[in-house]
């Protein structure tokens, strides 16, 4: 039997038998080389309570070349692209070892959620948000977990993120911005979506708000 097929089948079976890790691997179609992995968001992080799905493609030369993984669920994390779900993780690239398995890789992804690496970002805007204001970043990550990964939503104790209404998707909260800031520039007559876009790009958050002049924002808005 093909060594790759044997290995993948065994890995899927192992994962099914293992009830402790909470990691699931399912087939997407009939091919055992295109899979969907999922795991719960790690406790004590903004991703807690969420359910994260990962698209897995097993390359021809697996396990000697790394498996290709990307998030299906949208994740707000410096090392995950907020648009495509692409993941920046060393073991998916040059630090891959043939001994690693789908399960161990998914566990590594789970732990990546616990320990972001903003200095080696996949998504520079998210990383900037993280370094500028960690608490604001976490609020946004919680909100994303809530709306995309079925998480419990922002905790009551935090008043800051009160702008996020649980029922409707709040674009301002998705972008990790303050409602007041958006309103300030929207009131000048710019379309709301454009204001959100520009403020997100400028990283108009935390201490940065004081550094970025209003003129600069307006200049960007006029472009």
């Amino acid at each position, binding site marked *: 039997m093909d*060594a790759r097929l*044997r*290995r993948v089948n065994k890995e899927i079976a192992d994962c099914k038998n293992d009830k402790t890790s909470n990691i699931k691997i399912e087939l997407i179609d009939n091919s055992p080389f295109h899979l969907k992995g999922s795991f719960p968001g790690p406790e004590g992080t903004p991703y807690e309570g969420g359910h994260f799905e990962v698209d897995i493609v097993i390359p021809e*030369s697996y*396990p*000697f070349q790394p498996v290709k993984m990307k998030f299906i669920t949208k994740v707000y994390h410096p090392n995950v692209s907020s648009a495509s779900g692409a993941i920046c993780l060393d073991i998916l690239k040059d630090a891959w*070892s043939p*001994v690693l398995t789908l399960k161990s890789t998914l566990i590594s992804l789970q732990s990546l959620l616990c320990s972001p690496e903003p200095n080696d970002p996949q998504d520079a805007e998210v990383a900037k948000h993280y370094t500028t204001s960690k608490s604001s970043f976490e609020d946004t990550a919680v909100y994303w977990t809530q709306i995309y990964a079925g998480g419990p939503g922002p905790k009551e104790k935090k008043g800051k993120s009160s702008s996020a209404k649980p029922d409707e998707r709040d674009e301002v909260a998705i972008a990790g911005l303050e409602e007041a800031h958006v309103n300030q520039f929207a009131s000048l007559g710019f379309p709301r979506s454009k204001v959100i876009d520009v403020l997100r790009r400028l990283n108009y958050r935390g201490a940065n708000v004081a550094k970025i002049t209003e003129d600069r924002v307006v200049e960007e808005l006029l472009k």
Partner: protein
Amino acid sequence: MSSDYEFSDDDGDYFDDEEMIDGTQDSEAQSEDDMDMDAFGDDFKVTPKGKCKSYEIEYESLSQSAVERLMQKDVDHICGIFGVDSGIASLLLRHMKWNKERLIEKYMDNPTAMLVAAGVTMPEPVVTSTPTPIRTHSSHTTPTNTSRRPTRATSKLMALASGSKSKSPTSSPTSSFTTPKAVKTAKSEEVFVCPICFDDSPGLQTLALDCEHAFCSTCWTSYVGSKVRDEAEHCIRCMAEGCALACPDSFIRSILVPEPGAPITDAAQEEENAKTWARFQELLVRHFVGCNTSLKFCPYPSCTNTVSCPAAASKISLTTVVPTVSCGARGIGGQAMTQSQQGSQLGIGGKEHKFCFGCPIESDHRPVVCGAAKLWLKKCRDDSETANWIKSNTKECSQCQSTIEKNGGCNHMTCKKCKHEFCWVCMGPWSEHGTAWYSCNRYDEQTGVEARDAQSKSRASLERYLHYYNRWANHEQSAKLALDLYAKTEKKMEDMQITSALTWIEVQFMKKAVEEVDKCRMTLKWTYAMAYYLAKGNQKDLFEDNQRDLERAVEDLSELLESPIEAENIPTLRQKVTDKTVYVQKRNEIVLEDTANGFVEGRWRWNVTVDGFDDPTEVAI
């Protein structure tokens, strides 16, 4: 045509690795120095030893096996100093990018750290049982091989590594050897399951490095194959996660190359493995060449030769020489032909593998140095077409010199940048137009004249650039058409043999002339790049005089070549062409030699900052 000495595998013996590194070889080195003067058809000529012309550089072409021998010399040197086997020495050298001096320094400083960093030994000495030269305590002596019943794989490794002190322990479900560690014994009694492919068939061949991370040999083969072929990786680490131990060459060889006499089990697989092994060796050579500044690979497709040119190894040397070299091979593709086979054939198929040792921009950009040639090409790529368009479609704001295109509307222009208001027709300030708005009748006014002067000044630099560019491009275009010219000339040569009593050898003057024209056009082309950047002065005037003489001679010769052939005037034509060819050759040589000498003497002054040179002392455009 230039001819190279035939290079063969023996060439490597000529080298001494000391010379390689230090560049101390001098007049002894063989050099190509008969570029222009030797007669045609002399394809087997071996170049004389001795000083080459000032515009040429000493270099040597090396085959892959010659480079391998150079590597082996370095490895042997390290073996001798450290007392390690060649596999370890090779790993150490590769880790230190073949910098022997630094390796020796670092190794003497802390041998353990060096060995660990290079992937030779494990970080914790208690885990393995490999004796390395630095670990001499008794607990690490090799267990006697007799206590083991080696599997086939083991014995293969033992045989390969027997000259050295290293050995690779293997574990196999079928072998019941005693190992120094109890844990290991217990493990080896269980059924071995390869942690990668989960194969648990009894009698599975396993292999491991000194770290004892055992995997089945099939997985090792696939792994090494994938690393070598897909990733072009020459440093192959153990497959276990986080294990930094590197596979020595003997280990990789044992995986890929079957023992002599071993039964062929899977012919296709073995062929694949043989290819991987060849590729691995090529990768090692590439790494060695890449780490050594006095070596460069021939850039022609599927050519495996290397050129050694210690004189152009440093960046600073590129300010005084234009290191045009040739690897000695000809033709494109696998069938790199030797000169003897190819000598009679004209055209691109037989072009020699000429390239610049200092830069990748063009094979031969003499006489101009790499830095200026690069600057010029960049400018041309950015500018040439744009410059032409700007020249014909725009004007500059008379206040801030921004380039402005008028794409409609009236003549009342307001510069977007500096808000200067002016008239498009007379270029004077709009304020002076008074009530005569929208009909400019003030062309001769003083302010308008001044504005136009400024305009023409800024245009002058553009004109100047276009002057040089057009001539440069003209020669480049001619060089591109050289192929057609070759074909036409061959036809003419045939006609001549038919219409006159001249023999084949006697019509070769045509071919010689065409080659000369081609070569000189290359020189001329680059003289324009050079002249563009040369600062004004006597030196530049002299340079341009030489350039003009060569240009005239080349154009005369070209004209002669294009002239129709009539039987009665063939002898005169032949005389003329031959004379002119010699003259052109001389002129070309003068340009090349004078320019090269100028670089050595530091005679040339640039009007811009050229990489590696001092800032220009005077700016004159």
